[in-house]
């Protein structure tokens, strides 16, 4: 080893190291242009000049080529050095005055303008590209030719190189951007590697992460294009990786796993519209698929959220969306079903595009039926109309270029049969979903039956169980659906799949054991500071050794060190040793964000015998070096301040007690319909006691009145089977004629009192109380004429094989009665398919019967579209009416006369029918009392609100409470059953535990300061604080009490309290105050 000093700081490096490398080890920044780790030093640019003193000899030399020697004295910051570098820079800039990278570097060195005018090159002849090509790629496609003024980088004889692989390494290392076009070298055009995640709208390197949040998060190398794996050359990434993480020898591994259940969740592919010539996708650049457009709208996408046309990069001011592309069609290469999510995609994209482009964006949506049946989707549809979007009910004939500037002409036919043309700046094809062939092959291999459209066939009562024992499925593979439903079905499949595995639950768990914690009573703080380089993420900008030096002088810091990667396993092990060796009792890690990494370090603390709350992080990467990349000196100062602030807080940290609460393993299910029974059975099969509360004297709910599900399966036998299982399950206790009257407690420990007076202790609640049909008294002669009935009445007539049905000559259905109106702005999701299904049944009974369906939008979403088709084939007449022109129903000659304006004919038509079925909306029961008791919000229509529409679709915002079925929103039986299973699955995550670990960063009252003013009680958003009274010194003392389960540690109480009577552990006023003082340099 060789010892030398650089800027008076000693450093020890192996022999053969260059002065540059030694300086970098100390974190001293020396500018370079021709240097690149992994290629031989060359000394070509001379901007890395330093002053070297060896013995009596002092010289200025290029640090990248000068080897270290014992006793060498190096200075990088003298006036002579800086002046010499500035002169070199001036000469380089004079040669290449237009190169931005050189301009910036020159500016940093104080060279504002070149001294010698007239330079017109963009190559500084540093030879980095040539060395890269020869030494690393072993190709030698380029070299340096000529001398003096004719010196240049070129191929042999200036001909196209036959050996160039267009790998682009030369362009990659070029400091000035001289090599732009590899075609000049090779005569070939490299094919860019397109980013799959950005739908091919951007390129990506050969070493890549699919997207920023990808799991696993490690980048992958694409074997097909890797020069090292293909030829053995290159290997630059392995040389460059400071963590030594690259292993070229890794091979694909085949694993054999023994499992009890299998869940298929293979997803879908979006429909590729390239072969649909009418839309011009792939031929006209400004035709996008909805997936491409989605990426254009994304702030993390290829254009950072700026909507740009493919042809000229201009922002479109007029965009047309075409719905149902590739769907609802029997043409070759298209699909007969509806993809369910694409109407909403188009609406959402229009709203977001308007946000990005501005309120003047002209939005036109060409649709057949607007299918927005999910919760709150209808309101979204209304919202976009209010924002000026034109929703055009039409069929699109073609998309053609309009002129030569990239504009597009959309030709379409309106509902009234008129052909129209309109010109757009861009067109988005709202494409549907398809199941790809490899997934179909997988299903065939597993002998899982699929529908003609390649979706999994399943019973509506067990929607996530395939017809193959032990194999379950969820998501788009079960039928087209959107994110919330896929998330919900994922949980449902987990419940179904784990049912048979209940006995084995938890048997493979390995509990982590921590050593007992040290008692720190009376010990002064001994803080250890660990500063992370994070490779070059921190060390490449800030002076990490200087930060460590600084940390050593901060009060109470006993030990400080730097790490390359503090989160790596070896670093953790070494930190544990340091904690023991230096008897540290507080730890500060200066690295990335506590949001991502605190748990890792806190675990390490516990393994070292310290309480995990004796830890503090200084966020010097995300909030410093990444955001101040151009200001290394100020960034280093800020890092020091952040470390000082973290230490200031760490000194005042105290160990906090780990809080737990025992879990009661019983479940309460409210509501005895299909959802309630399915949920109860799901939990009982897992071995939990379940109390099922039903307000009536029998189980079954609305399903008792249903004839078939949309798939055609009879409801009654399946319902009977479910009832039998529930009635005879030893773990299920049924409480008939009972409603919930009182609730106390929180997740893990609820006590619910029933109207019968019985009190039940339980750990979780599933609410599945259903809903009821709207009874439109007086509308459409309902309750005035016996031949006007509701949808469930017709089901009952069919169920009872009512003779009258056979004598009817004509029947009609009116859809959307009481729904999709300003009073009830929601769609019921079930009635279109239900009416179509019943219309088919009537036609089957009597093919001569005339059947009319009067609808607003035919929402036979997903594979229900096939029912709609079948009904039309059988002669059912569909007539669309508008909300503001509802059908008029009158009695005439003992029959019913319906007058309605037909939108295709544009004139009123009269129908005479014998039976009129009203597809009325579904309205919630009186949900308010239950909502009040369990503190669950209701939406404007009175349905229960889930915690998060997408990621927590069955959870209430109050922990331990779940919801399924119609009480959440109207939906078909199949989806209610899936939600019930999802609830069982989510509930299992609580019930399977013996205790719940609670966060210790919560509010703590200080009794002696509290006078019971109760300001905090009102401020608490979680209702976690209660005012209590007790006797003290013969007097009543008021104070507050915090429920540790409900408190989330937000500290609203702390900020409200005028007397310091309550504080949040880990964020006390003293700790925050110390951080403020440290930030201001007062500590």
């Amino acid at each position: 080893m060789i010892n030398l000093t650089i800027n008076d700081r000693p450093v020890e490096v192996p022999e053969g190291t260059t002065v540059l490398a030694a300086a970098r080890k100390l974190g001293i920044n020396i500018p370079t242009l021709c240097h690149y780790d992994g290629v031989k030093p060359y000394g070509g640019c001379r901007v890395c000049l330093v002053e070297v003193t060896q013995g009596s000899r002092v010289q200025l030399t290029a640090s990248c080529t000068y080897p270290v020697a014992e006793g060498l004295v190096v200075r990088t910051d003298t006036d002579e050095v800086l002046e010499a570098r500035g002169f070199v820079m001036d000469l380089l800039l004079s040669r290449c005055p237009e190169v931005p990278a050189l301009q910036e570097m020159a500016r940093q060195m104080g060279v504002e303008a070149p001294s010698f005018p007239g330079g017109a090159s963009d190559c500084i002849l540093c030879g980095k590209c040539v060395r890269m090509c020869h030494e690393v790629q072993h190709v030698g496609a380029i070299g340096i030719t000529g001398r003096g003024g004719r010196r240049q980088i070129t191929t042999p004889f200036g001909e196209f190189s036959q050996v160039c692989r267009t790998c682009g390494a030369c362009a990659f290392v070029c400091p000035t951007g001289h090599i732009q076009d590899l075609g000049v070298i090779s005569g070939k055009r490299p094919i860019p590697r397109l980013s799959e995640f950005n739908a091919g709208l951007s390129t990506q390197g050969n070493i890549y992460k699919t997207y920023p949040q990808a799991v696993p998060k490690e980048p992958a190398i694409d074997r097909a294009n890797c020069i090292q794996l293909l030829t053995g050359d290159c290997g630059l990434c392995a040389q460059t990786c400071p963590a030594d993480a690259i292993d070229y020898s890794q091979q694909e591994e085949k694993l054999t796993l023994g499992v009890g259940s299998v869940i298929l969740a293979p997803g879908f592919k979006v429909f590729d519209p390239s072969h649909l010539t009418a839309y011009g996708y792939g031929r006209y650049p400004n035709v996008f698929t909805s997936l491409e457009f989605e990426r254009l709208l994304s702030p993390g996408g290829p254009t950072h959220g700026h909507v740009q046309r493919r042809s000229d990069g201009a922002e479109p001011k007029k965009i047309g969306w075409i719905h149902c592309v590739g769907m609802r069609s029997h043409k070759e290469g298209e699909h007969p079903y509806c993809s369910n999510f694409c109407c909403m995609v188009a609406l959402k994209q229009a709203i977001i595009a308007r946000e990005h482009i501005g309120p003047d964006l002209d939005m036109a949506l060409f649709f057949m039926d607007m299918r927005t049946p999910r919760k709150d989707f209808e309101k979204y549809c209304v919202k976009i109309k209010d924002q000026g979007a034109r929703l055009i009910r039409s069929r699109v004939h073609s998309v053609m270029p309009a002129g030569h500037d990239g504009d597009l002409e959309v030709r379409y036919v309106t509902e009234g049969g008129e052909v129209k043309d309109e010109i757009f700046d861009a067109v988005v094809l709202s494409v549907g979903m398809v199941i790809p062939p490899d997934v179909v092959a997988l299903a065939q291999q597993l002998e899982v039956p699929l529908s003609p459209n390649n979706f999994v066939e399943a019973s509506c009562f067990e929607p996530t169980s395939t017809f193959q024992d032990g194999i379950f499925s969820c998501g788009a593979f079960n039928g087209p659906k959107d994110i919330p439903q896929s998330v919900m079905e994922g949980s449902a499949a987990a419940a179904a799949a784990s049912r048979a595995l209940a006995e084995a639950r938890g048997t493979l768990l390995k509990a982590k054991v921590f050593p007992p914690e040290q008692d720190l009573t009376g010990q002064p703080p001994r803080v250890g500071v660990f500063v992370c380089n994070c490779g070059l993420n921190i060390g490449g900008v800030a002076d990490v050794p200087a930060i460590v030096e600084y940390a050593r002088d901060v009060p109470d810091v006993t030990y400080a060190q730097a790490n390359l990667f503090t989160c790596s396993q070896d670093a953790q092990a070494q930190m544990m040793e340091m904690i023991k060796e230096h008897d540290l009792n507080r730890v500060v890690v200066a690295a990335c964000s506590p949001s991502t990494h605190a748990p890792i370090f806190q675990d390490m603390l516990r393994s070292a015998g310290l309480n995990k709350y004796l830890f503090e992080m200084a966020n010097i990467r995300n909030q410093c070096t990444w955001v101040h990349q151009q200001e290394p000196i100020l960034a280093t100062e800020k890092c020091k301040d952040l470390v000082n602030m973290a230490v200031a807080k760490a000194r005042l940290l105290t160990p906090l007690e780990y809080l737990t609460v025992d879990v009661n393993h019983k479940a309460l299910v409210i509501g005895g319909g299909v959802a309630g029974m399915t949920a109860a059975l799901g939990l009982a099969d897992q071995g939990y006691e379940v109390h099922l509360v039903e307000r009536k004297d029998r189980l079954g709910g609305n399903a008792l009145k249903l004839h078939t599900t949309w798939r055609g399966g009879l409801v009654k036998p399946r319902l009977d089977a479910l009832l039998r299982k529930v009635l005879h399950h030893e773990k299920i206790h049924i409480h008939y004629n009972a409603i919930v009257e009182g609730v106390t407690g929180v997740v893990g420990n609820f006590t619910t009192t029933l109207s019968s007076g019985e009190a039940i202790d339980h750990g979780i609640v599933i609410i599945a109380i259903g809903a009821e049909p709207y009874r439109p008294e007086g509308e459409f002669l309902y309750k005035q004429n016996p031949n006007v009935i509701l949808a469930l009445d017709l089901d009952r007539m069919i169920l009872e094989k009512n003779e009258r049905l056979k004598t009817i000559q004509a029947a009609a259905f009116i859809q959307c009665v009481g729904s999709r109106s300003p009073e009830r702005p929601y769609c019921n999701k079930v009635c279109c398919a239900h009416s179509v299904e019943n219309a088919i049944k009537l036609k089957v009974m009597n093919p001569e019967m005339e059947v009319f369906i009067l609808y607003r939008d035919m929402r036979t979403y997903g594979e229900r579209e096939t029912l709609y088709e079948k009904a039309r084939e059988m002669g059912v007449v569909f007539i669309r009416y508008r909300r503001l022109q509802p059908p008029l129903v009158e009695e005439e000659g003992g029959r019913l006369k319906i007058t309605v304006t037909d939108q295709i004919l544009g004139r009123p038509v009269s129908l005479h029918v014998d039976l009129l079925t009203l597809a009325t909306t579904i309205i919630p029961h009186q949900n308010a009392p239950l909502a009040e008791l369990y503190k669950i919000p209701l939406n404007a229509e009175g349905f229960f609100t889930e915690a998060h529409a997408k990621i927590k679709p069955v959870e209430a915002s109050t922990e331990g409470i779940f919801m399924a079925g119609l009480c959440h929103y109207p939906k078909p039986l199949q989806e209610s059953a899936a939600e019930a299973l999802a609830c069982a699955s989510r509930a299992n995550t609580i019930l399977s535990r013996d205790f719940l670990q609670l966060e210790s960063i919560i509010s703590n009252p200080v009794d002696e300061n509290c006078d019971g003013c109760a300001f905090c009680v009102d401020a608490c958003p979680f209702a976690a604080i209660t005012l209590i009274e007790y006797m003290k010194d013969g007097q009543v003392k008021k104070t507050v009490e915090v429920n540790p389960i409900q408190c989330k540690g937000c500290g609203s109480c702390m900020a409200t309290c005028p007397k310091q009577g309550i504080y949040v552990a880990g964020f006390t006023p003293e700790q925050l105050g110390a951080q403020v003082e440290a930030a201001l340099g007062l500590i």
Partner: protein
Amino acid sequence: MEDQYEPRIIAFCCNWCSYAGADLAGVSRLQYPPSARIIRVMCSGMVHPNLVIDALTKGADGVLVCG
């Protein structure tokens, strides 16, 4: 550099939103002046008015409560 006025700003950022936002600014490499010192709090609602006044009287040029 010395003659440039550099304000010293204390920023209280909510753990769940603005602190995460500051992290995201880093991930996105958004560059901003290094004059703010961020203090993580569990909610901007926990910042007591006294803390803000203290910071200003002790020399902060600005206090940002972000949440």
